[in-house]
C-alpha cells in the first residue's frame, strides 16, 4: 500500500463516510452513517452519490413496509484508496507532531538559557555594556558566557 492523498476522499465529509464504512462493518445503514458522521441527510445523499459514481461505495436500496432503507458498503477500490489516504494522513500527523515537539523543545531551551542568564546576572552583577564581560562564544552554542566581576559580587547569593 502506498501512502498517497486521494483528492476524491480528501474532503472531510467523504473521508468520514469512507472511514466509517471501512471500520469493520459489512453494510451500514443510512441513518447510522448519518448519525455517526454528524451530517445532514442531504449532505450524505450528495456525497455518497459522488463516491458511488467513482466506484468507491456500493449502495443497496430497499424498503421495509413503506419505509425506504438505504445501505452502504465500501468497495475494494474504495478501501484501497482510503488506506492510501489514511496512511498519508498518518504520516502527516507524525510530521506535524514532530515539528511541534521540536518547536516546544527549542522554546524550552531558550527559556532555560534566559533563566540561567537572569539568575547569573542576579548573583553576579556585570557591566552589560562591556563586550569582554558578557558575550556569546564563537562556537555557536546558545548559552551565553558570563564572566562575573568578583569585585561587584552581591552578598545575597551565598
Amino acid at each position, binding site marked *: 500500500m502506498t501512502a498517497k*492523498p486521494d483528492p476524491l476522499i*480528501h474532503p*472531510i465529509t467523504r*473521508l*468520514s463516510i469512507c*472511514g*466509517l464504512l*471501512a*471500520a*469493520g*462493518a*459489512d*453494510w*451500514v*445503514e*443510512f*441513518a*447510522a*452513517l448519518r*448519525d*455517526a*458522521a*454528524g451530517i445532514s441527510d442531504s449532505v450524505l445523499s450528495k456525497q455518497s452519490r459522488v463516491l458511488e459514481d467513482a466506484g468507491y461505495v456500493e449502495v443497496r436500496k430497499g424498503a*421495509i413496509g413503506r419505509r425506504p432503507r438505504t*445501505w452502504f458498503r465500501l468497495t475494494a477500490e474504495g*478501501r484501497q484508496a*482510503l*488506506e492510501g489516504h*489514511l*496512511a498519508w*494522513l*498518518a504520516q*502527516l*500527523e507524525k510530521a*506535524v*507532531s514532530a515539528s511541534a515537539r521540536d518547536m516546544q523543545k527549542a522554546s524550552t531551551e531558550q527559556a532555560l538559557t534566559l533563566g540561567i542568564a537572569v539568575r547569573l546576572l542576579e548573583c553576579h552583577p556585570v557591566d552589560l555594556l562591556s563586550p569582554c564581560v558578557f558575550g556569546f562564544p564563537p562556537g555557536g552554542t546558545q548559552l551565553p558566557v558570563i564572566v562575573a566581576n568578583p569585585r561587584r559580587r552581591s552578598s545575597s547569593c551565598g
Partner: protein
Amino acid sequence: MHDVAGEPAALELLRVQRGRLADRMRLTWWYQSGIAILWAMVFASPFSSRYLRPVPSWPFLVAALVVVCLLQWGLARATGIRLPFRNLRYRPGRPVGIAALVAWFAASETEFLLVRHGLPVAAIGVAALGVAAEMALLQAALRVTRRELRGGGGPA
C-alpha cells in the same frame, strides 16, 4: 493546496465518529433472549436424549439456524450495522470463539455424565451455568466488535 494543520484534526474527527458508530452496536433485549433460548435448547439435548422418545435432530437444527438468521437480520435492522460472517480464522474474535466452544463441550459432557448417574438437578444447574457462560461470552464478542469498529481497519 492542502490544509496541513487541519488534516491531523481530520484523523481525530474520524476516531470520534468511529466511536459513535461503535456505540450504536448494542445487543437488544430480544436478541439476547433469543440467543439464551437457543443455548438453553442446546443444553437441553442431554435430557431429551435420556428422558424423551428419540426424534430426528435435523428439524431442530434447521429451526435453530432460521432463528439465528432472523435474529441477525433483526439486529442489523435495529443497529443499522450489518457485520460480516466470521469464523475462527478471524483473529480478534478467536479467543472468544474458542472459549464458547470449550464452554459448550464441557457443559454438555458434564450434563451427560450427571444425567447418566441419575443427578438431573445437578445437570440442570450445569446447563444454567452453561447458558450464563455463553451469554457472558456473547457480551465479550460484542466488546471485540465494538473495539474493531472503534479502531477501524486503517491506520486511523
